[in-house]
């Protein structure tokens, strides 16, 4: 290991501890030596190999320097940095990711999380020390412009949006191309609910630097918030062409594509989804809903094949949740698409087979093709097992009416009323409208 030149790191950190969060004991020890060479005392360095320990240490010790693996067990280094971010303003802390993960979306997530350094393992220790020194020097000697921006960010973090805005607007006069100040001014307007002024700031930022990532994505997010999906959709292509996509942004892209009926784009977005290392619960929910909406759209277009495709993706995204599968199957039963309904039902999670909800859904599908007499027989069994639902009662009363089994239908209606009195009038109407002498 090379000996590094004197560093400003001890000056920057003062007495604050440094956290190294990495499952590898040897890597942690290496970083520890590297930090010691940079003048950090051994007593200042804390090491965690498990995510839970690292999280506890960030909360308790409030380290101004966090060096973390991208992923530790099931936890993410970015979550540690997020906690650190709540404790210090960005100019007052350093966050560093050291990992073998070179996925662009992961790097983009890190950058949006305001990570200061991101190094690919293995690396020469001299390169690590050099990068750390650069970061420290940048933080210790910020320009007047950055000082203003940082001051604005402190106000922003305290929800003092007017004061933050004042600082960001003042910062704009301190640099020839103040893109960052425009971005943060836009964010302040956003926070104040003035989305149109926010959009102006983001656009101004892009006038200084075309395709400036923060301003471009800021504009996209603001347009989604304003529900101006057509304009938001227009920005998807330039963002996608020039930058990796983060989890949050992808969720908004799904939303924009759905609201603008660009359902054919969803399969492209799904490829991006598959390439993501981090999938937030929000993204999982939004993308599966997008697939459900796309499937419904294609059913309306009578394109059942495409509907099946999108529904299948939706099912994969949300781990074959039964409630999701039920919605899909019911969409096909509504249009009497037995083959597709049965196909989707076959995608059920094996653990759900044999459960009451599966039995009900299975009946809903099979009643589409069963002869009325057989359907009535099967439904009686389901109802006597206490598994009747309003939909089942409706279809069985209809079948009984068509077969002219008025008495049987009435006793079924009586059972339905026991479970839900509101069903009575609806079922009696179905019966009276469909008895053979009435038709």
């Amino acid at each position: 290991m090379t000996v590094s030149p004197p560093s400003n790191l001890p000056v920057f950190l003062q007495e604050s501890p440094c956290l190294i969060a990495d499952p590898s004991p040897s890597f942690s020890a290496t970083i520890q030596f590297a930090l010691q060479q940079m003048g950090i005392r051994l007593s200042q360095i804390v090491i965690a190999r498990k995510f839970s320990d690292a999280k506890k240490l960030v909360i308790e010790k409030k380290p101004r320097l966090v060096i973390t693996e991208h992923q530790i067990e099931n936890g993410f280094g970015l979550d540690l940095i997020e906690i650190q971010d709540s404790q210090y303003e960005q100019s007052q802390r350093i966050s560093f990711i050291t990992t073998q993960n070179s996925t662009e979306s992961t790097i983009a997530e890190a950058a949006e999380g305001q990570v200061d350094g991101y190094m690919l393992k293995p690396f020469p220790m001299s390169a690590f020390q050099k990068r750390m020194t650069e970061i420290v020097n940048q933080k210790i000697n910020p320009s007047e412009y950055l000082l203003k921006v940082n001051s604005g960010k402190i106000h922003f973090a305290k929800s003092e949006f007017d004061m933050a805005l004042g600082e960001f607007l003042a910062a704009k006069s301190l640099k020839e191309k103040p893109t960052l100040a425009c971005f943060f001014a836009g964010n302040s307007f956003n926070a104040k609910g003035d989305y149109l002024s926010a959009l102006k700031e983001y656009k101004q930022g892009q006038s200084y630097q075309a395709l400036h990532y923060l301003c471009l994505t800021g504009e996209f997010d603001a347009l989604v918030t304003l529900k101006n999906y057509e304009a938001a959709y227009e920005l998807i292509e330039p963002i996608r062409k020039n930058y990796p996509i983060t989890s949050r942004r992808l969720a908004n892209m799904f939303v924009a594509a759905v609201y603008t009926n660009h359902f054919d784009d969803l399969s492209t977005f799904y490829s991006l989804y598959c390439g993501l290392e981090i999938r937030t619960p929000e993204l999982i929910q939004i993308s599966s809903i997008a697939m459900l909406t796309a499937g419904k759209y294609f059913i309306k277009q009578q394109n059942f094949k495409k509907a099946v495709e999108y529904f299948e993706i939706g099912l994969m995204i949300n781990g074959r949740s039964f409630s999701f599968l039920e919605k899909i199957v019911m969409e096909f039963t509504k249009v009497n698409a037995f083959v597709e309904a049965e196909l989707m039902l076959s995608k059920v999670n094996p653990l759900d087979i044999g459960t009451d909800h599966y039995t009900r859904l299975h009946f809903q599908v099979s009643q589409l093709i069963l002869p009325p007499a057989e359907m009535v027989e099967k439904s009686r069994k389901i109802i006597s097992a206490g598994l009747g639902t309003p939909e089942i009662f409706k279809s069985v009363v209809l079948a009984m009416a068509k077969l002219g089994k008025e008495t049987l239908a009435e006793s079924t209606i009586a059972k339905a009323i026991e479970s839900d009195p509101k069903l009575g009038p609806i079922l009696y109407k179905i019966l009276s409208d469909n008895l053979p002498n009435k038709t």
Partner: protein
Amino acid sequence: MNSTIKIYKIINLMTELEIFCAKNDQFIEISEFSETSIFVDLTDAKINPGQLVSISGVVQIKESSHAFDAIANLVKVQTLVEKIVRLEFQLRQFPKILWDDFLISKESAQENIDTLLKKIKGEL
């Protein structure tokens, strides 16, 4: 894909004893490198500095893999933690072009990351 070097055998050329031999494809990755050295972390390695060794491994550069056979001098043995020691090998005879490709690939991957990071953070 990240570039790296995986080692599957290290033999002490003086004693002809194996210092490390991968079992069941359990290769070890180098933990660090410099312009002419590689660092390997081993558990319970019994070897002293000054020994000449042969190193067999695989260099992964982006999507492609290449055999990496080198003669190196063990210049430093450092206890890191518990029973883990870090061995620093100074490369003597090695596939120079392949090694340079590895160094360039690592450097350019890191440069790309730094650029992307700065671009996204609005610093460029």
